[in-house]
């Protein structure tokens, strides 16, 4: 269990994290989402005692991380896979971690095998790919077999096989009753693996809810096709937002498929296709974080035809 209460971090005049309060419960994968600069990494760093909060507290299993004598047995974390001495072998890196927490060297070999790095463990990490470094970081997080796991962008640099592996790993940890907090920019990935999401923007908590609740918050979207789409549009427009997709197809927001079908039937309008449009976490995320994006790009303006011709 991770408990964050009123957590705040101020850098000069910038408030990176602003009065965050949330709990991360055991037995679930909790996704931690937010745009770049939203304060996700800063929050994770404060949870792990790396940065000092300006105000508020962050506790793991009821204790501050900085008070833990053998933290790797309590919390496994991967924040920055690149933070490894390039001249040290992967095995030596993990041996130092193990020694610092009184963990046996045998366990080092076990986790190296678990993440699939056993054959390259004695190679210096400067020869590792980003994916291999991610796996090494994950091995470090697993070293103490901890009940709480914190991962910052764990699928970065992993190939499809690696992504599927980490997905299964996270799911397995949660099913074993462990607490799993994972940040990612890949919404499709989060939608597949997370049970709950925390969404932050500009350091503030925007949402703390189950995936289903977040998707439900978008409302129903229904695609309906009819040869008399114009007439159907008139029937539905009084009850919901209706958008014309093609000459025969409408998208209705705010009504369930059954309601759309009933209204069409009552109006005597034939329906050739009726389906709930799939809601995605990405849409929910974009809706939630709209206005909280720190650095937004703009589409390049098209030069005028005359300019092109010059």
């Amino acid at each position, binding site marked *: 269990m991770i408990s964050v209460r009123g957590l705040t971090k101020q850098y000069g005049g910038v408030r990176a994290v602003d009065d965050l309060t949330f709990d991360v419960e055991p037995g679930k994968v909790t996704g931690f989402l937010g745009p770049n600069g939203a304060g996700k990494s800063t929050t994770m760093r404060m949870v792990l005692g790396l940065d000092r909060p300006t105000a508020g507290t962050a506790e793991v299993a009821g204790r501050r991380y900085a008070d833990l004598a053998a933290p790797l047995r309590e919390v496994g974390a991967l*924040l*920055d896979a690149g*933070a490894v001495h390039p*001249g040290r072998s992967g095995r030596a890196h993990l041996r130092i*971690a193990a020694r610092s927490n009184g963990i046996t060297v045998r366990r080092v070999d076990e986790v190296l095998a678990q993440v699939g790095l056993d054959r390259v463990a004695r190679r210096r990490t400067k020869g590792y790919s980003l994916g291999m470094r991610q796996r090494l970081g994950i091995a470090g997080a697993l070293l103490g077999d901890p009940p709480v796991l914190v991962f910052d962008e764990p699928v970065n640099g992993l190939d499809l096989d690696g992504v599927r592996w980490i997905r299964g790993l996270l799911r397995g940890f949660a099913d074993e009753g462990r607490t799993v907090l994972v940040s990612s920019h890949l919404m499709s990935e989060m939608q597949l693996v997370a049970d709950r999401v925390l969404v932050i923007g500009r350091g503030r908590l925007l949402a703390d809810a189950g995936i289903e609740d977040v998707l439900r918050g978008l409302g129903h979207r229904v695609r309906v096709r009819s040869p008399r789409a114009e007439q159907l549009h008139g029937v539905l427009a009084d009850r919901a937002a209706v958008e014309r997709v093609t000459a025969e197809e409408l998208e209705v927001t705010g009504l369930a498929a059954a309601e759309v079908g009933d209204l069409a039937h009552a109006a005597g309008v034939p329906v050739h296709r009726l389906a709930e449009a799939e809601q995605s976490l990405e849409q929910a995320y974009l809706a939630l974080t709209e206005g909280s994006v720190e650095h937004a790009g703009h589409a390049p303006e098209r030069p005028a035809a005359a300019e092109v011709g010059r």
Partner: protein
Amino acid sequence: MSALGWAAAAEWSRIWTVRSSWLLAGATMLVVLGIGTLVGLDASGSPSDVPADASAWDGGRPTAMFALFGVLALAVVTSTADHGHGGMVPTLQWTPRRTVLLAARVGVIVLTTAGLGLLLVTGACLLVWAIVPEVGLGVDGAAEVVGGTGYLLAVGAALAVGLGLVLRSTAGGLVSVIALVLVLPMLLAQLPYDWSLDLATVMPGSGALYLVFGEGPSDDMTTTSARLTLASWAVGAVVAGGWRLLRSDAG
């Protein structure tokens, strides 16, 4: 084992699992033992120039200055290695009690580097004795050289670790330590001002020079003043470095 014991064991592994530590230790060994050999060969070539009461400990004593530079470099490199690659993040994840990390890091690096330096200086003295067996190898000289050199190397290593923790940069640490121990004392002593001479006297390099060769920029210097000067610098650097480690966010 306690958290401090675990942290110390991890620090020991950190030092010896990178090639740069072995290269620096090897280079220091070559220089110190090489100079010990040259001193011995020089003495054996002109035995009439060797004072009657000279001992091998006196012959090997100058190698302490070269050992000091090796110790300073090794201490700076090992204390700053984490900062160069973002390694402080995993280090503080593994040992989040910063006072424990500070004690382990300073303690292990000082004991390891100063111990290595002392071993090499002792080896250089034994080499002199092996080449010129006519010179003695008295116990009194041993206590003075081993004790005095051990103190010099230990406070030098502490100064280097402290600077490393303050600056969090290998290049910055090396430049600073060379400036304090070599460049500034020499430069200040050459300037034609009383204040520069006074300042040169309290530089750590002047203290080191006095402890090894018995000479310094000022006639007022004594063994006690030299030791106090070095200790003050070392304590100041470790306090400042410790303060930064304890108070700052992980870099």
